């Protein structure tokens, strides 16, 4: 007769392996390691408390990310005064530029610094889709936004990132691509 697995064992096996990914995402989204640690701790506590509601066989990683962004949004309201997305989008609509892909010589630190400068809503989508490789639909569910918004933020986020990195490359004097003003 198969041995029944306790909820705690299932939690250990399914949730714990994603802790490092969650921490890294939280660090990038919140921009501060100590806050990321607090949030990851909170995510796992909430996940443990509600693990009985998690359906075996479904995507535990996506479920944890959903809790993560729920916690992040809660803390953002407490810790930060972020500009409203609408304002950000309007700003970008009038300032977007096209740049070439990331120059090879840039360091990880350069890339992270550029990512940290992105508006938080765009950064979240880029992290989920490009770094954590969630599908658009999964990212939309995790963030609680329409799939179209995910695609639009991703596109704008990527462009912003490229633009920012291009500036860094030009500062080094070893590359950078010519800018082309949109429109």
């Amino acid at each position: 007769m198969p041995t029944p697995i306790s909820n705690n064992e299932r939690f250990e096996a399914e949730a714990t392996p994603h802790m490092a990914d969650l921490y890294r995402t939280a660090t990038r989204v919140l921009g501060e390691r100590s806050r990321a640690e607090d949030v990851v701790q909170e995510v796992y506590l909430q996940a443990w408390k509600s693990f009985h509601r998690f359906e075996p066989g479904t995507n535990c990683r996506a479920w944890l990310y959903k809790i993560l962004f729920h916690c992040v949004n809660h803390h953002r309201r407490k810790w930060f005064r972020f500009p409203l997305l609408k304002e950000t989008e309007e700003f970008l609509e009038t300032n977007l530029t096209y740049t070439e892909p990331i120059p090879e010589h840039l360091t990880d630190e350069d890339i992270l610094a550029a990512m940290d400068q992105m508006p938080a809503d765009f950064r979240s989508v880029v992290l989920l889709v490009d770094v954590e490789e969630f599908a658009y639909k999964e990212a939309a569910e995790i963030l609680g936004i329409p799939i179209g918004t995910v695609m639009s933020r991703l596109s704008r986020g990527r462009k912003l990132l490229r633009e920012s990195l291009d500036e860094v490359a030009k500062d080094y004097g070893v590359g950078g691509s010519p800018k082309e003003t949109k429109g």
Partner: protein
Amino acid sequence: MSMNSRLKRAVESEPVPSYLESRVRATIREAELEKVRVWWHAPAWGLAATAAVLMVGFFALRRQENATIGGLTQQVSSFMTVGLTDHLHCTMMRKQQAEPSSLEAMKSQLGPRYAALLPAVESHVPVNYRLLDAHQCKAQGRDFVHLVMQQGDRYLSVVVTERRAGEAFSTKNLVPSLAQAGIEFYQQGAGNFQIAGFESAQHLVYVISELPAEKNRQVMMAMAGDLRRVLPAL
């Protein structure tokens, strides 16, 4: 390298603090303990309500002789929690030592009377667990001999206590969950804990852990034979 790969590599270069996992586990552990404390230190009104329910149940049982299951369940819980009391007292409510005591220290703490329990238990420590400590202790006015095993943040206790007059699993109307080699095993879950127990002529023996019920019972069954041989000499 593609933009996605560069991003991924950059984000993954962020070091994860080595203490994060244990910090998270400790938080969960604390929440788990809180649940146990709430359950263990039931408020007075809760006890009063339970007593009232039992009284109502008692009169209902008088009228319906066959409806005895609720009362039996109550008795099972109260009797099996004898061992759980000590487990909670020593492993959950108190900070545990980080490193195992030496066998010599454990023998000394058990004293000559109970030292023979050590090899009987030591040879059946479950895979991935280690024998952390062995001692005599007292909880809620009762003396116990307690052998503690550990796997990370989880503890498994083998608890032995002398039977008091009239105390026996069989007189508590419990039904053994399994019998093997003439030993009847009793089993009960309480919160996240599983309690398995058997009795000898003079002692009650419990294995308490957070393992699944079946695994917890297997641990008890594995060591029951050796314990049974040792117990009459204690």
